[in-house]
């Protein structure tokens, strides 16, 4: 008995617990790891302080472009001065509260939708009403709001618009394509496979070129569809093919028993899919769908190439101003933060969702 007490009083050596123990276990376990740690620390010590100095100590914050050139560090004034233009583009200055409110509605909806307990019918209606209101706010023309042509839309609202509308429209289309690809009807199957593989085989740029150069030729004389809508269509068609592949993965994950059970209680194809298969299949593929969402969000930046004034293009047009020429690092860094925050929160959310779903409910 006495021995047991003594054993309890024996404490582990100081070098294997606490901070020192952690260091030993995680940074200096073995010769190679110690060398690696020291080399990495040396590298960080060489790199981080100069960057910190550039970004915060030597930087200029509220100056003109001329004064900026004297400063040794970063010129954040380019963002401070051009912030509203970079965010809202050519939207009329005194009307810019409208895209701002539209974005707030979107963020509110997104924030509310984070909780899976809120995924009920009213939320779907809320999204429909919300998207409609956002469109109305941007466009104006009624309720005493001044009409703003879509050629003047730009900046962050346009980026978000392309991403959100692109995904809402691409999702149902993708589901239909996936169902078509899994269909027993040869003809439908072949058409869907052709579409999906064709779209997935070509870069988004070629579709955007098609939308901006060729699409006008497709329409009868006199009918014009504006550039944003055309780019939007290209993004939808592109994203749908990727969603179709993700959904197909989910459909393949369904066991035969599910189909047979649905058939045995006399459900037809439509009801089988709507009530039995799709609810389960779509749930499995929520995490990969979020990664499609992330890449669709990033891909909206490609509309720069067909000269739509989304966030990246407004930034570039600020940079082409002689006063601010040469401060690309700061400007692009600023844009990168926007994209990073958006994508990071989405991928974080996807990971959380994956944990929740794998826990089983």
């Amino acid at each position, binding site marked *: 008995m006495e021995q047991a007490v003594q054993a309890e009083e024996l404490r582990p050596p100081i070098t294997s617990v606490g901070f020192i123990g952690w260091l030993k276990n995680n940074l200096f376990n073995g010769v190679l790891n110690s060398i690696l740690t020291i080399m990495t620390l040396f590298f960080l010590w060489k790199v981080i302080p100069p960057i910190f100095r550039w970004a915060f100590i030597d930087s200029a914050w509220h100056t003109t472009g001329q004064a900026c050139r004297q400063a040794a560090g970063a010129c954040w004034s380019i963002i401070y001065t051009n912030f509203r233009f970079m965010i809202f583009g050519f939207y009329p200055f005194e009307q810019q509260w409208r895209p701002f409110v539209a974005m707030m509605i979107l963020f509110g909806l997104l924030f509310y939708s984070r909780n899976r307990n809120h995924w009920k019918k009213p939320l779907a209606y809320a999204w429909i009403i919300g998207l409609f209101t956002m469109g109305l706010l941007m466009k104006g023309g009624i309720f005493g709001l001044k009409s703003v042509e879509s050629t003047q839309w730009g900046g962050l609202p346009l980026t978000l618009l392309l991403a959100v509308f692109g995904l809402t429209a691409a999702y149902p289309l993708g589901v239909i394509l996936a169902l078509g690809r899994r269909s027993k009807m040869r003809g439908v199957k072949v058409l869907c496979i052709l579409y999906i593989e064709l779209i997935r085989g070509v870069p988004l740029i070629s579709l955007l070129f098609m939308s901006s150069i060729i699409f006008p030729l497709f329409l009868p004389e006199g009918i014009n569809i504006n550039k944003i809508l055309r780019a939007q269509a290209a993004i939808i068609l592109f994203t749908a093919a990727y969603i179709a592949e993700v959904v197909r993965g989910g459909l393949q994950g369904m066991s035969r028993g599910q189909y047979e059970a649905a058939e045995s209680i006399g459900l037809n194809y439509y009801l089988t899919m709507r009530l039995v298969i799709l609810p389960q299949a779509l749930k499995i593929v929520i995490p990969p769908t979020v990664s499609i969402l992330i890449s669709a969000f990033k891909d909206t*930046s490609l509309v720069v190439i067909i000269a739509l004034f989304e966030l990246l293009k407004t930034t570039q047009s600020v940079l082409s101003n002689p006063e601010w020429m040469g401060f690309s690092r700061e400007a692009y860094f600023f844009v990168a933060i926007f994209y*990073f925050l958006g994508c990071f929160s989405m991928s974080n959310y996807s990971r959380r969702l994956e944990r929740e779903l794998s826990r089983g409910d």
Partner: protein
Amino acid sequence: MKEFSDSPASEKIPFWFDPKKRAILFQFITFCMVGLLAYYLISNTLINLKRQNIATGFSFLHKESSFEIGESLIAYSAASTYGRALLVGALNTIKVAFVGIVITIILGTFIGVARLSTNWLISKLAAIYIEVMQDIPVLLQLFFWYAIFYETLPSPREAVSPGAGIFMSNRGVAFTIPEAHPAHKSMLLAFVAACMIVYLIRRWARKRQEKTGQFFPTFRVGIAIVLGLPFITWLAFGAPMEMDVPKLIGFNFEGGLTVSPEFIALLLGLVLYTAAFVAEVVRAGIQSVSKGQREAAMSIGLRPALVLNLVILPQALRVIVPPLTSQMLNLTKNSSLAVAIGYPDFVSVANTTINQTGQSIEGVALIMVVYLFFSLSTSAFMNWYNRKVALVER
């Protein structure tokens, strides 16, 4: 009694309740709709083309292009045809995609392994790299690197030289290369021959090991042959040492090998972006091999290198190859963003062609066909490789 005598087979089923006939009808309607849509679009297009006096067809490929292309792997001038210009573009795309894929796989594997390191610092740094690079659009990264090149580096006159024979300026990076010598051709031949010899040795070693159990150090011998044979050839030609050092003539460097800033920015952007995805793929692949496999391999007395080679890698590759293929394809497709920073890849040349000739439909169709070809051939190759490493089941 009548209802009992009637068997269901003899009853006439209306065709809309017969799934087979209904399927045919449904497909017929689908095809009609697709056909009508296609007819509508094509007829509109033809009318519009006629109205705008644009001739269709690919005859423009034989006309003189009359524009210059900054870099080219084959002889090209403004007097060459559009067809040749497009070929130059396609080769440039292949060049950047090939170099990019090779570097990406190396860097991605490195970062993926670092992510799994027991060293906390290195693992966390790799995690930060992966997260940050994945979350910033590749186009933005391209613009960023291009801008860095233009704004940070000086003009050729004040070029910085980080190492002997390398000159960095905003016109590109000039490298010193060995001066052209007939020895190089023979060295290349020797290299190819060495590769073939190593392949044969590997086959022989494998057969012998399966028969007798004797192990042959293929890897070490292989490296020795691949490096040794060209080296011996080089010595046999009298070890030519003349170097072609880039010299500043006028406003730019001449001689040596100059890599354009567009190419470097494109390569840097594509590689750093895709490597983050490849790192995740590699990490997932390595983690998919259970711990027991490594322990079992070690318990039968294999050395660490052989554990990795014979047990871990074959299983990890099976998981890694399919997603790796799609990342390679992504890199190839993303290389089309070159048009935004002015690297003359296929899309960029095709875009110029469209602007000059107005042959927009043919131009975009060519872009699509070429990328489909890249995609399908890459995935065909990777499917072949995947079948090779896939689990052989009974």
